[in-house]
């Protein structure tokens, strides 16, 4: 190196500025251009490296020459040992500098993690919260094993069961637009739903080729009682069957609450467990008598504390709101639900886990629970269904399969335990025949309904409902479907509001008085009479006296302990009267024994405090309905109010 430079006319002094300039130029270019992406850039990088090595060698060599001239003894040693070491050191050192220069500033930071494989997980609404927790736990588990980078990312979402089933039956053709992502995994809350889809797709050559379902967890049904109540009675130290436990609960004066079977798979299985126990203990007639006695007790509790006729979470939410007032209520729920309640988890939007003040945990602490496990209880299964699409990729299939495999490992079991679930058990769930028998007994024992329907006939109901039909047309069609659920035992009446006949635009008009469904009105079956009267109406009133109608209607429905008594209001607007006296009356409703339900469409909103308050206090509900699916939402609602069997 030295000789080459010395022999040429270009000595170190001339070469250094030229090479430094070139080095700076190339280094700047590399800095601006980012990491070498082409062969040319790589050649340039290596070139700069070599030049830098030469320059450093020249400079250090010059220093050694200088040292050699001062201390002659060093000269020989430097030529034999120091020079090769110097060259190697210079090459490596300058290389590091150049590479460092070209990769540190000015370039996008290296992505820490690759984008994980995306898994779309569809869950039943009642299972959404814990499925999210499980998927999060799995993501974290994969991240812990891959330097903090998760290998899978799960998007968990929920749609009602009938929506999920119908879209899966049609291979998600309209599901992408109407619902959302096409799911890779599905966690229904009812194993029979899997069969409904499988039957439809079998041999149909659709995109959804097959379903692979496996139970990953279970949760037994329990009787959850406050610690105070258990302390009052001698129930802890003995094993009990369902029949014995229910007898004991009666003796101790406990109230009994259970999710409504028409709206809850857990409610239906709980009913199967209780009635099945009674069936083993006696004859078929005994089961019906037992069912009547149990249902009567449950109905009394639900009315006394205004528990909603709904699935587990709304029931527990109300229980949490009642606090010390519900100390003597024994809840028939799953072990997992009781666990989530005790932990202060979210129980729907009305019962957040924590609203800044840890309200869920505080509320739970005020109602410590004791779980009683009947010896003959049944378990609620938690299946995971792998959806085998014709075009799913190998990586996505493997990701889904890995998640399922993980659930059966120790880590997976720990994650299940953290959400209150147990690994699959040996016990079999109730056979479908047992569920069907219990359903029959329940329908025979179920209280009939007494329902007053109040329909908004203000002018806004003439507005189009998305197609050529008006909101009023859609409402009538939906009511026609819902009225088919009436059984002869139910009672029904119909109001419209506002009233215009007498020249007043306030108040309401009775079209069909409350009466038994099997008693004709004006020569027609009651439901037909109601539909005919509505068909003859033309909505045109400019006002919506909504609050006044609710107050008047609640007063007009006589509560009956032997019936499910309710007011259902279907409206598309807000109250236009804004009368403080009426609003105060509305705010005072709650103990009349009449559940108030509001079906809000169009501009009507369940978010108003007045509607949210009165429906919640009375144990009713506010349904923010969509006109496209109004019929199914009404069917769902009337299914729990009338004894005709509900949606099936």
């Amino acid at each position: 190196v030295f000789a080459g430079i010395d022999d040429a006319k270009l000595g170190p002094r001339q070469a250094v500025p030229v090479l430094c300039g070139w080095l700076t130029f190339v280094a700047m270019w590399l800095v601006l251009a980012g990491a070498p992406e082409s062969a040319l850039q790589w050649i340039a990088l290596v070139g700069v490296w070599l030049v830098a090595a030469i320059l450093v060698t020249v400079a250090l060599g010059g220093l050694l020459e200088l040292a050699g001239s001062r201390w002659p003894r060093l000269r020989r040693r430097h030529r034999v040992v120091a020079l090769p070491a110097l060259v190697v050191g210079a090459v490596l050192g300058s290389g590091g500098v150049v590479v460092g220069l070209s990769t540190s500033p000015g370039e996008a930071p290296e992505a820490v993690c690759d984008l994980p494989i995306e898994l779309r997980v569809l869950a039943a609404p009642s299972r959404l919260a814990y499925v999210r927790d499980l998927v999060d736990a799995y993501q974290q588990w994969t991240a812990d094993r891959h330097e903090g980078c998760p290998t899978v990312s799960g998007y968990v979402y929920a749609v009602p069961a009938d929506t999920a089933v119908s879209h899966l039956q049609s291979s998600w053709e309209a599901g992408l637009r109407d619902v959302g992502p096409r799911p890779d995994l599905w966690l229904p809350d009812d194993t029979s739903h899997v069969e409904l889809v499988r039957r439809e797709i079998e041999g149909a050559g659709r995109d959804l080729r097959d379903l692979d379902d496996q139970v990953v967890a279970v949760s037994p049904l329990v009787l959850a009682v406050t610690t105070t109540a258990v302390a009052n009675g001698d129930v802890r130290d003995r094993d009990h069957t369902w029949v014995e436990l229910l007898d004991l609960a009666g003796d101790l004066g406990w109230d009994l609450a259970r999710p409504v079977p028409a709206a809850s798979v857990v409610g239906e299985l709980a009913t199967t467990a209780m009635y099945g126990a009674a069936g083993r203990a006696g004859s078929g007639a005994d089961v019906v008598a037992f069912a009547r006695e149990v249902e009567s007790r449950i109905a009394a509790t639900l009315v006394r504390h205004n528990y909603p006729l709904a699935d587990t979470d709304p029931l527990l939410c109300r229980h949490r709101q009642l606090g010390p007032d519900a100390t003597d209520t024994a809840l028939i729920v799953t072990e997992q639900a009781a666990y989530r309640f005790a932990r202060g988890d979210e129980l729907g939007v009305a019962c957040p886990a924590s609203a800044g003040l840890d309200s869920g945990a505080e509320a739970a602490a005020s109602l410590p629970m004791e779980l009683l496990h009947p010896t003959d209880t049944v378990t609620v299964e938690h299946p995971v269904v792998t959806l085998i699409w014709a075009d799913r990729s190998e990586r996505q299939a493997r990701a889904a399969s890995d998640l399922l495999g993980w659930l059966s490992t120790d880590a997976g079991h720990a994650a299940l335990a953290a959400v209150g679930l147990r690994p699959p058990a040996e016990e079999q769930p109730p056979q479908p025949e047992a569920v069907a028998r219990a359903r029959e007994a329940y329908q025979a024992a179920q209280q009939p309904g007494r329902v007053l329907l109040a329909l908004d006939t203000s002018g806004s109901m003439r507005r189009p409902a998305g197609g050529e039909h008006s909101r009023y047309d859609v409402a009538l069609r939906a009511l026609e479907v819902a009225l088919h659920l009436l059984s002869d035992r139910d009672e029904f009446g119909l109001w419209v509001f506002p009233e215009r006949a007498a020249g007043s635009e306030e108040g309401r008009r009775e079209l069909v008085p409350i009466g038994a469904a099997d008693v004709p009105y004006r020569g027609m079956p009651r439901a037909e009479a109601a539909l005919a009267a509505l068909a003859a109406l033309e909505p045109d009133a400019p006002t919506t006296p909504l609050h006044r109608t609710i107050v008047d209607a609640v007063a007009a429905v006589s509560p009956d302990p032997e019936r499910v008594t309710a007011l259902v209001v279907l409206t598309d607007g807000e109250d236009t009267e804004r009368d403080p006296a009426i609003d105060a009356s509305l705010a005072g409703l709650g103990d009349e024994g009449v559940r108030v339900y509001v079906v809000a469409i169009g501009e009507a909103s369940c978010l108003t405090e007045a509607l949210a308050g009165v429906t919640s206090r009375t144990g009713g509900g506010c349904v923010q309905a969509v006109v496209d699916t109004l019929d199914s939402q009404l069917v769902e609602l009337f299914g729990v109010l009338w004894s005709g069997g509900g949606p099936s």
Partner: protein
Amino acid sequence: LRVTRRSLLKAAAAAAGASATGSSASSGCSREQADRPREGLVELAIMSGVDQSPGRQRDVLRRRWARQHPGAQAHFVEIGGVADAHRSQMVAHAQSGLGGVDIYNLDVTWTAEFAQAGYLRPLDVAQLDLSGFLEQPLQTCRYDGKLWALPFNTDAGLLYHRSDLVPEELAPTDWGGIELWTARVFASPDHPAELEAGYAGQLADYEGLTVNSFEMIWFEHGEVVTGDWRDPRIEVDSGAVADALRRLARVATHETPQLILPAASRVRRSGHHQRLPGGQGPVHA
């Protein structure tokens, strides 16, 4: 109701070319028979969230583009649900390797990860006229020194107020103003009986809460991400950001009576599912 303030909530939604294969819609995506391309036509598939704008403005744009390009057509492959649902389906589709989608209509926060993952192809800036775009939305389309997308539609948050309660010239433009006017209106003995709160925002657990949180943080002069972009620092548990979040928590838990509509923590933007009740607050977001 009058518009008094515009704040950039979602800076932009951007569409980016992502696949070279472009003439067949993916499985599971419905398409009308009439939309099928004629022989020789180029047809682009645009994967996008469902267009909820009045009059389906994205489709208006698509039709206008098709009129200007007689040899080409485009159709939307729409995804229902919330923004997270759209992202999940788009990522899963890109990872499936199925092709069939030419353009992803991405939220601005996804452009970089899609580009980094190799799901997008960079655009050739030399062949584009970028002069008509707003600079900030356009900036969200750049990553790693390249342009990966172009702004498709840009949304802005609006603050409405009741002009019968708050004079236009004094309308609030920030949180301080909202608090001030809420107190002032409710202090008035003849305020309308139907008033429930001063402010109705979108505080449900979704991107609306994120946006409202940032508005509160910026009002407190805080920044979640500070430092050089090559060495970002994220700080939420102290200083102005923490103050802002505490303030938001107080608002959301109704510690300050009447400032916020109690139902706001359940409100999402998504149109027909949950609506803001009208006429109950002096200002709305």
